């Protein structure tokens, strides 16, 4: 009896080992990196992080004629770097708050670096530095202008935000619902002029009471975002200033 069991167990083990065959597809190791820059100013393109920011669509045509799109996202300053790309032939299209670019065929082997010069829908510049007021608010000045003359992207301004965040990651993807300020409808500013925005109106100016920062001193990060009435991939996408840091009184 014991003999039979031993035989059976040995057979199972042998067949188990014989079934072992290296069946791993090699891990992706190519690098695709670069940045999105403003065509006119040559400055880094300021964007959100995630689905409302810059999404780079990669279609791996060397794998299939109808590949499942692979998406990678850019950082807040428009830089992207992905070191885990499968080697192959890709159709690459960056998408975001700028005039769409045509799909470009890229051979990704080793390290491929690519910079995209884009025409943003809007260009938002700081005018001076943020001012921390005595009443627990802060005021910034910015100027919003059109970033493109392309007639397809001259829609009206739809929303402007002064995003306030407790961390350096600030934008529509991460903001304080208490201290940020939203401009919409009749409170929307004109284009091309220097405008002031004060913190603390998250529901829109005049909605509820203006919120002030807590009584203790701490750091906040500010960024102004604006969008026109034009969606990209059904998503509201903003153009941004760079981030600024303030310390409350």
């Amino acid at each position, binding site marked *: 009896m014991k003999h039979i069991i031993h035989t059976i167990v040995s057979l199972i083990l042998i067949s188990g080992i014989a079934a072992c065959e290296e069946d791993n597809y090699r891990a992706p190791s190519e690098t695709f990196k670069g940045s999105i820059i403003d065509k006119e100013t040559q400055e880094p393109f300021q964007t959100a992080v995630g689905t409302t920011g810059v999404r780079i669509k990669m279609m791996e045509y060397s794998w299939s004629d109808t590949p499942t799109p692979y998406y990678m996202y850019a950082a807040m300053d428009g830089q992207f770097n992905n070191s885990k790309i499968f080697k192959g032939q890709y159709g690459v299209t960056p998408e975001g708050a700028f005039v769409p670019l045509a799909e470009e065929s890229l051979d990704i082997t080793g390290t491929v670096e690519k910079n995209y010069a884009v025409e943003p829908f809007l260009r938002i510049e700081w005018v001076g530095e943020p001012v921390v007021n005595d009443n627990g608010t802060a005021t910034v000045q910015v100027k919003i202008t059109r970033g493109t003359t392309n007639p397809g992207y001259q829609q009206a301004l739809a929303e402007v935000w002064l995003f306030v965040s407790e961390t350096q990651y600030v934008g529509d993807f991460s903001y304080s619902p208490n201290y940020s300020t939203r401009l919409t409808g009749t409170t929307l500013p004109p284009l091309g002029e220097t405008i002031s925005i004060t913190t603390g109106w998250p529901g829109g100016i005049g909605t509820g009471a203006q919120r002030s920062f807590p009584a203790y001193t701490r750091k906040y990060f500010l960024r102004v975002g604006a969008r026109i009435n034009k969606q990209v991939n059904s*998503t509201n996408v903003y153009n941004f200033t760079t981030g600024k840091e303030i310390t409350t009184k």
Partner: protein
Amino acid sequence: MKRIKSILTISFAITISACTDLDIAPVNLLGEDEIYGSNDGVMSNVARIYSRLPIEDFKYYYAATGSSGFNYSGTLFKQMACLTGEAVGRDTQGADNEGFSYWDEGYSEIRDINTLLEELPARSATISEAETKTYLAEAHFCRAYTYFALAKRYGGVPLVTTTIEYPSPEGIEGTRLYRASEEAVWDLIAADLDNAIANLPEASPVKGRVNKYIAAAFKSRAMLYAGSIAKYNTVNETQDQGGTSVQICGIPANRANDYFKAAYDAANLVVASNKYALYKGLWVAGDAAAQAKNFRSLFLTETTENIFVKYYDQTNATHNYDESVQPAQTKTSGNDSEVSPSMDFIEMFNGIPKDANGQFKNRDENNHYYLFNSPRDAFANAEPRLRGTVIFPMDTYRGQVIEIRRGIWTGNAGGGIPTLANEGDIGNVADLADPNLKLASALGANPDIPLKPGDSHGATMKAAGVNGPVSNWDFGNTGGTYLAKYLNESGVTAGGNSTQSWIEIRLAEVLLNRAEAAYELYQAGASGDNYRTVAYNDINNIRERAGARMLTGEADLNHIDTVRRERRKELAFENKTYWDLKRWRILYDEQNNRRWRILNPFYSTDAQKYFLSVKFQEPRGGFQYIFTFDTRYYYQPIPATEINKNPKTKQNPGF
């Protein structure tokens, strides 16, 4: 040994002789012959098709994460009404999207319908011609109903109108279909419903089954949806399908009037039949209380206003509506208080004091609170329909005064009660450092506050009443009100024992469909009828029954928002508004960093009266209750597993 051999031989012989051909139909499975060969068989199949219709009723749970949120057992926590701002709820904490994907379930329903459409005519010998005709027309109705559920979620979807052979003769490729254009899907819905309208009988053969006018009523809803997409949608996604460009999301704008006209005509058919009437059984002209009672009882009564109803009863199917929505005060066990109508909703109605911004006016010019003997007095003159929809603090339900109180204020009220520090603002009342405010941290920690000698309320009063709201995460009220619509006036509420039936379509909706389609046609300058007159009359008929202020003349009807607002008031809490906000494409405009406003009743021990504070829904349990709709979800994502199975399916934009 020899004997053993012979036994074995005999055994083998027996075994072999026992071999007969075993290719017989299994007795535990019903084949097509059984199903389509008898009236009973077809009837049971049709019943199964009906039972799986994607009806967003009491058992629809949008947050379900499994395979389906329809016919869900235990819709106890998140409620769809709280996604629209009509109400706040403890467990609806943000602008959620559907947790499940209605796709697989829809196509298996469509397959069953298509099989019926193909098999039944082939076997008509056993079933009478009239019955066959009705069954087929019902199948067309059900298919339209199912495609409607798909189209409003995804836009264009693969159009399957025949039973796909599986495996297909062309192999797996033959089962992979492209998404049809969104327009084609809506046109199929229209065609299926036209077929149903033409072939269904005047009256339902059995209660719960459809008739000609149910199909027409549903058509008015579906075509209004399509017209709105054509007019208001801005997402136009196309796909190259083997050389042809197909618009899988969006409908050409020039089709809008076709669809509005189709909605208008279908609604006309229902109204002209004179089979249905707005329910006025308890309605008395000039009597607000009777009108409120009439509106409330509409949802608990089988009335002539009901067009298409999903019936519930103790024997066959029950649901959890009462258990989810009921006041904490009247519950025996289980959940409570998941739907509390918001001030944003209440302010849509006339008959309550309002300031220049249209918001509830709770303070005088010195910023002192108005005082009331009972908080319900502030709403005494509110539109009867609102009184029939909402239980206000201290209203009576199930013979009990529903005591809703945020707290007790013990300060000196001599010079008037000054505005609380965070009136109209964000934050939990418990965060206020006001020594005069006595609050309850939880229902189980609800202190007795001494009252002034001689107070008619007695010697002490519970800080947060019986229902709350309390400061911490707990059961009990969260918004100062309770929902009355559909709430049972008697019977067991715990353990999913609710049996009120779901009115999927009622005449008021059809009139509002017609009014909206008519106003859109009027705005577009369409000819063919006095559209504005029709819309005006429909709105006023609804308002008369509601006890609302009437439009004084046709000229009063000068904006689409008048029609939309009427719809939102009349059909609130019937799981229609969410899709209305979507098809009007205004959900993002309404829900962008939005908090809903609530009512906080406080009792003043000094004044021996109540005052009503309004603020944003209070943060509890770490939830901020901020609503921001993700615009991508105007078209919901197609489940990734379906795209893996069929790479020809193009995902909706943004996903």
